[in-house]
C-alpha cells in the first residue's frame, strides 16, 4: 500500500513512542471507540436494571411519586394466580417447545445439507418464513389454523381427520404456537447448517472405512462436533422462550374484546409470563409490581442460563484448534 506512506504522519511516530506512552495512547483510543457502547450500556442497561430493583420496592403508577413499600410487591407476587399461570405456560414453551423447535431445525439443517440439484432454491424456500415479520406470521397463522376455514384443517379433513380447534381449545393453543415457530425455524436451521458444513469430511470417511453406518456417524461424529452450536442455540433459545411475547400477544387479541386488557387466550392458556408483565405495566400501570415481575424474570433467566450452561458444558466437545 504505497498510498499509506503518503498519509500525513503524526509527529509522534509509533516506533519512537515509549512502550508506556504507546500503551496509554491505545488505552484512550480503545476507550474512545468503545465509548458509544459504554454510554449505551450505562444508560440503556445498567441504569434501568438498577432502577427496576428500586421500583420493585415501591408502589408506583406514573402519576404520583413512587412510594416505598419494601418487599410487598414480592409477597403479592408469590402465589398470585396469573404469575403461576404465566410461569407454567412459559415453562411449557421452554421444556416442550424449545426441544421440539431445535430438533425440527436440526432435521431441516440435515435435509438442507444433503446434495441435491436445486438445493439453493429449496434452502431459500425453507428460510423464507423467517423473513415474515413475527406479527404478520401470527396473524397469518390465526387464519391458517382457523378451525373451520383454515388450510390446515381443510387439508386434514380431506384425508378424513377432523382437525382440532387449534385456537380455541386450551390444549392446542401452545402447540399451535410451536408449529408456527417450527415454520419459522429458518435462521436456526441455517446456523445448524453452517455447523454441519464445518465438520471435516475425513472424519466421516474414516468412520465409513471402520464400517460405521450413517446413524452411528450422526450420533458419534456429527452431534459431538456441532455440540457447541447446539449448546449456543439451547441457551439463546431458553432466553428467548422466557421472553415469549409478540406471537402470543397477537393471538390473544383475537380472544379478548376490543378495548379490554391484554388477554391470556382460551382459559389463559397463552398467558405467558411476559404477557402478564406487559398487562401489569401498561394496562394497569402497576409499575412497581411490574418491576418486581421483571426482577424475578431476570433472576430466573440468570439461574436457568447458568445451570444449563453448567450441565451442557459437560456434554459439549470443543475441538482443538
Amino acid at each position, binding site marked *: 500500500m504505497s498510498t499509506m*506512506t503518503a498519509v500525513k504522519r503524526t509527529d509522534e511516530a509509533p516506533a519512537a513512542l515509549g512502550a508506556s506512552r504507546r500503551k496509554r495512547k491505545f488505552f484512550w483510543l480503545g476507550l474512545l471507540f468503545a465509548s458509544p457502547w459504554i454510554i449505551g450500556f450505562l444508560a440503556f442497561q445498567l441504569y434501568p436494571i438498577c432502577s427496576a430493583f428500586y421500583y420493585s420496592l415501591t408502589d408506583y403508577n406514573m402519576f404520583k411519586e413512587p412510594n416505598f413499600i419494601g418487599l410487598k410487591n414480592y409477597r403479592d407476587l408469590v402465589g398470585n394466580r396469573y404469575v403461576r399461570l404465566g410461569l407454567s405456560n412459559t415453562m411449557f414453551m421452554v421444556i416442550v417447545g424449545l426441544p421440539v423447535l431445535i430438533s425440527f431445525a436440526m432435521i431441516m439443517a440435515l435435509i438442507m445439507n444433503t446434495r441435491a440439484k436445486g438445493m439453493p432454491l429449496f434452502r431459500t424456500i425453507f428460510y423464507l418464513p423467517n423473513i415474515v415479520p413475527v406479527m404478520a406470521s401470527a396473524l397469518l397463522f390465526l387464519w391458517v389454523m382457523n378451525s373451520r376455514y383454515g388450510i390446515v384443517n381443510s387439508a386434514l379433513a380431506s384425508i378424513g381427520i377432523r382437525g382440532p380447534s387449534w385456537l380455541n381449545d386450551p390444549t392446542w393453543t401452545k402447540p399451535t404456537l410451536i408449529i408456527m415457530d417450527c415454520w419459522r425455524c429458518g435462521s436456526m436451521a441455517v446456523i445448524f447448517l453452517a455447523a454441519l458444513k464445518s465438520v471435516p469430511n475425513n472424519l466421516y470417511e474414516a468412520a465409513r472405512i471402520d464400517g460405521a453406518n450413517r446413524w452411528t456417524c450422526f450420533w458419534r461424529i456429527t452431534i459431538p462436533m456441532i455440540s457447541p452450536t447446539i449448546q449456543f442455540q439451547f441457551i439463546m433459545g431458553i432466553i428467548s422462550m422466557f421472553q415469549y411475547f409478540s406471537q402470543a400477544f397477537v393471538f390473544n387479541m383475537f380472544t379478548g374484546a376490543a378495548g379490554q386488557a391484554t388477554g391470556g387466550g382460551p382459559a389463559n392458556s397463552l398467558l405467558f409470563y411476559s404477557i402478564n408483565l406487559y398487562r401489569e405495566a401498561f394496562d394497569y400501570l402497576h409499575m412497581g409490581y411490574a418491576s418486581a415481575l421483571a426482577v424475578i424474570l431476570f433472576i430466573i433467566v440468570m439461574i436457568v442460563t447458568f445451570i444449563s450452561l453448567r450441565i451442557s458444558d459437560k456434554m459439549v466437545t470443543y475441538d482443538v484448534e
Partner: protein
Amino acid sequence: MKHTSPAAKAARILTGVLKYAMLIGLSFIFIMPLVWMISTSLKPNQGLFVTPIEWIPKQPQWENYVKIFRQVDFAQYIQNTLFTSLVPVLGALLTTPMIAYSITLVPWKGAKIIFPLILSTMMIPWQVTQVPLYITWSRLHLLDTYFPLVLPWFFGTPYYIYLMRQFMKGLPNSVIEAARIDGAGEFRILTSIVYPMCRPVLTTIAVLVFIACWNDLNGPLIYLQSSSKYTIAVGLKSFMLAAKTEWELLMAANTVFTVPLIVIFFLAQKQFLNGISTTSGLK
C-alpha cells in the same frame, strides 16, 4: 461405494426420487401459508368461507388493497416505519464498527473486559429494562416520539457488535500494523482501511437492523400513542381490532407488511445467510 450392480443402481435411483419427493413436499408445506395469504387477500369477503378452498380467486379483488389504504392511513404507517427502520440502520453502521474495532484491533486492556460484558448483556431479557426505560422516557417527555425507538441503536447492539467482531478477527492484522507503522492515525485506519474491508458484514448488519426495526412490535406498541405516528406493526394491531373477520383485508395488510422484506431478502440473500451463519462459530 461405487459398486454399480443393477440392484445398487435401482436403490440409488429410488433414494433419489424419495429425496426429491421429500424436498418438494416440504417446500410445499413451507410456502403454502404465504400463498394462502396472498390468495386470501384477493378474495371477496363471501369467498373466504367456501369449501373446497379456492386457491386462485376467479375475480381477484384488487380493491382490497385500495380499501386498506383508505380505511386506515397505511401510507403514513409505511412512511413512519421507513423512518424508524432507516435511522437505526444509520446508527448501527456508524457505531458498530467503532466498537468492534476497539475490542478487536486496538491493543488495550479494556477489550478483555468489555467483550464478555457485551456478550453477557445479550442474556438480559428486554422485559427487565422495559419498565424503567418507559418511565425514564416519560420523564423526559419523549413518549409518543421516535426517540425511544431509534436512539438506542446509536449505542451499539450486542448481536451486531459480535457479528462485526467475528468478521474483523478475520482481517489481515498485518495491513493494520503496517498502517500504524506508517503513522496513520487510528481514526484514519478505521475509516479508510477497516470500513471498506468490512463492506460485506456492514451490508449484513444494515439488512438485519432494518428487518428487526421493521418487525418490531413491542417498542412502537408501548411508546407510540397517536395513530399518525404508528408504524405498520402497531397500525396493523389496531386494524386487527377493527377488522376482526375481514380476513381478506387483514391478509392484504399482512402482504403489504411482508412483501418489502421478501424483496430485501432476495436482493441481499447472500449477505443475509452469511451473517446468520457467522454466529455459529461461537468459539
